[in-house]
């Protein structure tokens, strides 16, 4: 089963190492394969190095895609993490 959603990066530092690590930690909980896309670059949602090369800074719109038995739950929770600024204050 495939599922995807778009979300805007709103934390000040964007997809930096600490934020990406929080994202990957969540992504690893799901069986589905997870991809994140920024314009024409796509990266493995379970790889820190991969996600960092997306260079998603503040204001970038990204698309989170999942394929597998828990894809909907995965995408929804990952979107929430981005919207919550990865737990950061700004």
């Amino acid at each position, binding site marked *: 089963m495939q599922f995807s959603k778009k979300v805007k990066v709103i934390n*000040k*530092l*964007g*997809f*930096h*190492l*600490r934020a*990406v*690590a*929080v994202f*990957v*930690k969540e992504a690893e909980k799901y069986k589905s394969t997870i991809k994140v896309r920024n314009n024409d670059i796509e*990266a*493995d949602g*379970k*790889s*820190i*190095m*991969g*996600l*960092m*090369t997306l*260079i998603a*800074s*503040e204001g970038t719109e990204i698309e989170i895609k999942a394929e597998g038995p828990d894809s909907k739950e995965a995408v929804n929770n990952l979107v929430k993490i981005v919207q919550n600024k990865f737990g950061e204050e700004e």
Partner: protein
Amino acid sequence: MFKGIVASPGIAIGPVMLLTKKSEEILKNKRTILSVEDEKEKFKIALEKTKNDIINIKEKIIYDIGSKEGDIFNAYLQLLHDPGFVGKTEQIIREQKVNIEFALGQVLQNYLEFFNKISDPYLKERSRDISGLIERIIKNISETHAIEQKKVSGKFIIVAEDLTPTDTAELDKTKVLGFITEKGTQTSHTAIVARALEIPAVVGVKDITSNVKNGDLVIIDGDRGFAVVNPSQKVLNTYKEEQKKYLLKNKVLKKLKKLESKTQDNRKIELNANIEFAEEIGSVLENNADGIGLFRTEFIYINRANLPTEEEQFNIYKTVVQKMGKKPVTIRTLDIGGDKYLPYFKIPPEQNPFLGLRAIRLSLVNISIFSVQIRAILRASAFGNIKIMFPMITVVEEFLEAKKIVEEIKAELKKKKVNFDENIKIGAMIEVPSIVLLSDELAKYADFFSIGTNDLVQYTLAVDRGNETVAKLYDNLNPAVLKLIKMAVESAHKNNLKISVCGEMAADPVIAFLLVGLGVDELSMNSASILNVKGLIRNIKFQDAIEVADAVLKMKNSVEIKNFLFEKLKNKLKGKEKL
């Protein structure tokens, strides 16, 4: 053949042990590997060590600052099993059959290329996060190498970009045949250590680390400043022959051991040893030094995670002084700052460290550290002949302040009925031009003077002795330096004090001749040079040396002085050199 700067004499022949370079250079060093599995195994071990390091740092940070700041370390931990990082690195190792360092370098480079495209300043700044992690892994890989090297039996020649005091403190000195470094000058730390250990060294050898690999056969020609990598059989034989001659000459010198250090007209010049480690006492006794003229205590503080306790220091000083019997041991209090620092005692970064908080200045603003050392020294003084010496005195008040602290601790020990030498002598290092100009005043309060020529030359000529581009200006025989030495000697003698020279200058027989003529009473040097200088002292007349020194003080530059000294010495020694 590579040309460098002569740092420590002698000839060494042996296999290379390459000490790691800066991580950015290591990452560019491409090697073809024989076994992908071995390389992956090394990577695994380094990752495991890095993981432990990070967990430790994380716990410390959380404890010190709070859990929020520890978060970045969770990210590091995740990266250590990240497919995009570990997987990618392993892939490069496997596909290109290259070493881990190079593979990591590729991964880092790809990653940084992405970051260079970013305009967002915040995100761009974060690229450093990953570089920091990779640096740590590299460090752990080299440690893995080091462990492998430790298993190598036999002795080796260390080749490195530069050796810090911490590096040399960590070395197994019984296995080192010699040093070759890319950086450094005659007075840099590597050179001093090499001379102390009586092993040959050549420093300032450009690009040597890129031109050798572990196990290459290399010759150090410490007298001429050459390094020969993988020599031909002919060259090797020549050097083996020279090495034999060198050892023979040493044997001849050893005959001087029991003889007194006196000029032919009976002027006694005490010849003392400079030491850094208690382990060097063997060499001090072997060369029959009259005492220890300079015990550099900073090496008790370097290469550890915390300050040495009073008890630890006391035991070291006690061991040294007991082994020296009744001979005097001059202990210089902590001299850090400048190019020496302690990992656990951070000094705020300074624009000009050599003009900053170093030596006695540092002790006087960190009285608790200073007091521990003074207490340890005083307690050890009950077991032999100890003198205390303060480094880098710049004004008289500094000396008085430091001396007052010693007096306070003496009173405290007396109250507690702890034994110590109540008449312990306290002296000053003369290594800053200002204190030479004020030496007549200082002499009223000090018990002795000791000229530290390395720093005196550096501060008089305003030249950084570690900076190769200006090292030429660093000139022992500059008339300005010699005039200051003469002035300090006159102040000392006017006030009935003895004055010593404890820099590396004292070890050069030609310069020692001049120093004797200038009136210096004692010379302190690396123990390996003592017999050589004694040979000189026994073959000259004090009266001749005085005349030569008087003539030298009228000369304009060091070239003229050098030629004159060589000429005079050659004539004096002509045909009459004997033991």
